[in-house]
């Protein structure tokens, strides 16, 4: 309900999103994606969508991240530097 908080959240949203796709370390990228999801959940709470926020926190930030980390344990962790 407070605009400045909105702005801060949206700013962090953009920052985490960009960071998640640019980082070379896939583990860091996945964790940042989790953070992104969590900020998104907060944003939705701001918008009055408490149930969606709750779901996103549980699914997007929680379980999805856990699955991604589980998958990463089988993969090479680093993304190759792109030419």
């Amino acid at each position, binding site marked *: 309900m407070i605009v400045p908080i909105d702005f801060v959240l949206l700013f962090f949203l953009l920052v985490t999103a960009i960071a998640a796709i640019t980082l070379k370390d896939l583990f860091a990228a996945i964790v940042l994606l989790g953070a992104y999801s969590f900020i998104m959940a907060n944003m939705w709470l701001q918008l009055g969508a408490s*149930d969606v926020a*709750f*779901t996103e926190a*549980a*699914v997007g930030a*929680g*379980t999805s991240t*856990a*699955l991604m*980390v*589980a*998958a*990463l*344990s*089988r993969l090479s962790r680093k993304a190759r530097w792109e030419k």
Partner: protein
Amino acid sequence: MNPESTGYKRDVIIQTTAKLMVPFILVFGLYVMMGSEGTGGGFQGGCILAAAYILYVTAFGTEKGRVMMPESWNTFFTSLGLYLYDGAGLVAIILSLAAAQFLNYSAIWPLANILGIAEARGYMVAFVVDVGIGITVMAAFVSQFFDLAWKEKEEEKGE
């Protein structure tokens, strides 16, 4: 990250924390799943339950996890959950002899009367549906987790 591949090591901090947290997470998950007045969030609840189990497995290893809930149950749970909520809809059709629509719970009320819980009839259906969804989601996520992280590696080892 992967206990099996690194030769699973006990980590006191993680295990202690997990021991503390898992019961609370489970209770919270159940609460979310069933709700306070009959309605709840089946999907979210299932997710939280799955997360609790995943935490447990991560901390204590697959062997102990198997003791808690064997993997083969996943299949069974997935189907059971679906039977509950798909069945709740189909029961409406069957009980009303195809006069009411799928998921039309007013058709289930006679059943609630027979069972003697007429006052809770609305909640009952929602409860069944939510629990069904929760069980399915939990089982699905857990089996997905096993698929991704451990399963085939163990098979390779076994062969």
